[in-house]
């Protein structure tokens, strides 16, 4: 066992070094904006967003402001360089594609954007002609999140004007991850569907979006689970979802052997978990040996997609 583990560690180390070699690389040649900064695009943007700030379209108001002339909304920065309806041709030999292929080959196949940070050196004026460079800024070590295990990838885009002066920059962070555990069962059956109703489907939808919610009465503030229309404490029908921190304790558990339901693996532990917020949920364990189960043990709640349409909370029991 120990040899196998050290082999895995070596593989991981080699993969990590390969990943790090991409940091600092430019993705390809600078991308020119197809058009100058222009009033028609500003108008479309302001109309769609409902932005009535007059400095973007009213020259008299703009002249009277600190900006002194018409300027583009600063948050339009990225829009000026968007490729449009025809996707930009991406070379397969670009470092970004090579990095993605490497991640893909290690089963980090899913992607979700997490952060976007724009900094503006100056506001843009009609007539400015931009170009953009993209660099791989940083790659995080492997992290386990509610979505699954993966690496955060941050790219940096720098925007330059016609005089090659930088006008702004953007850090854009995504996570490339392995979708959380999807165990193949012998029968290939999928896990039984939850019985969803008008009153609880929002809770399952939340899981699908990587959020574990608890219902809170907006009148008396009492938390409750499972989801229901009426507060059992004060009978108010007004409530709001609050996100659980995702930690708890084993209140009790059983190990079921029979009857066996297709789509589940047996022996199947079923746990009652007291969330630290004070509500109790039923769930199965994940990444946990049955021998490690004990009443009172701390758990982390992990949200896992059991198939494309179902994400459920599982308890990862502390050793």
């Amino acid at each position, binding site marked *: 066992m120990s040899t196998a583990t050290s082999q895995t560690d070596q593989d991981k180390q080699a993969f990590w070094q390969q990943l790090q070699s991409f940091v600092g690389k430019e993705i390809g040649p600078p991308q020119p904006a197809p058009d100058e900064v222009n009033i028609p695009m500003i108008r*479309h943007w302001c109309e769609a967003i409902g932005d009535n700030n007059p400095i973007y379209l009213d020259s008299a108001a703009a002249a009277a402001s600190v900006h002194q002339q018409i300027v583009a909304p600063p948050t339009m920065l990225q829009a000026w360089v968007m490729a449009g309806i025809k996707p930009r041709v991406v070379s397969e030999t670009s470092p970004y594609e090579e990095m993605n292929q490497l991640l893909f080959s290690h089963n980090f196949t899913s992607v979700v954007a997490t952060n976007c940070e724009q900094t503006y050196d100056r506001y843009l004026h009609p007539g400015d002609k931009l170009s953009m460079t993209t660099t791989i800024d940083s790659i995080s070590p492997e992290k386990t999140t509610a979505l699954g295990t993966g690496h955060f990838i941050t790219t940096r885009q720098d925007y330059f004007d016609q005089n090659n002066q930088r006008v702004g920059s953007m850090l854009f962070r995504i996570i490339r991850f392995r979708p959380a555990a999807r165990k193949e069962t012998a029968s290939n059956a999928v896990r039984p569907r939850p019985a969803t109703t008008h009153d609880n489907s929002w809770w399952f939808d939340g899981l699908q979006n990587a959020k574990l919610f608890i219902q809170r009465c907006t009148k008396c503030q009492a938390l409750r689970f499972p989801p229901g229309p009426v507060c059992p404490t004060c009978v108010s029908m007004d409530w709001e979802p609050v996100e659980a921190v995702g930690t708890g304790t084993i209140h009790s558990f059983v190990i079921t052997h029979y009857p066996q339901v297709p789509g589940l693996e047996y022996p199947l532990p079923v746990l009652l978990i007291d969330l630290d917020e004070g509500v109790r949920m039923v769930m199965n364990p994940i990444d946990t040996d049955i021998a490690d189960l004990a009443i009172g043990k701390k758990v982390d709640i992990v949200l896992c997609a059991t198939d494309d349409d179902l994400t459920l909370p599982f308890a990862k029991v502390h050793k």
Partner: protein
Amino acid sequence: MTLLSLTISDVEVGQELPPLDIVLTRTLITATAIASRDYQEVHHDPSIAVERGSQDIIMNILTTNGFVGRYITDWAGPNTFIKSVKVRLGVPNYPGETMKMRGKVTAVTGNDVTVVVTGSNSMGDHVTATIEIALP
């Protein structure tokens, strides 16, 4: 429409921005995606969005940035200089939802103001943003 324009003396730490609720229609999500030249199908084609695992079309990130920018200048007015907009993304913005935008001043240093903004819908926070602006 005349917008009030704030100066630095109008602003103090803890001040709350007037709330802004954005009703997310299908037209709004599509129009904003196209206005930002973002033609990815998940922002306008419901059947492809569902095929890719989404519940419906979703607002694109450029538009999220745009609403954060608008929310700031709706409050602070035309003499605002936005220095940076840093957003953390959460649950998607689907049609049929309402994005409730709320904000608070968290720091004032010289002429620089830091504002924290959230945009939430029925599922939770769509966006949590930190914006740095300069006021005259």
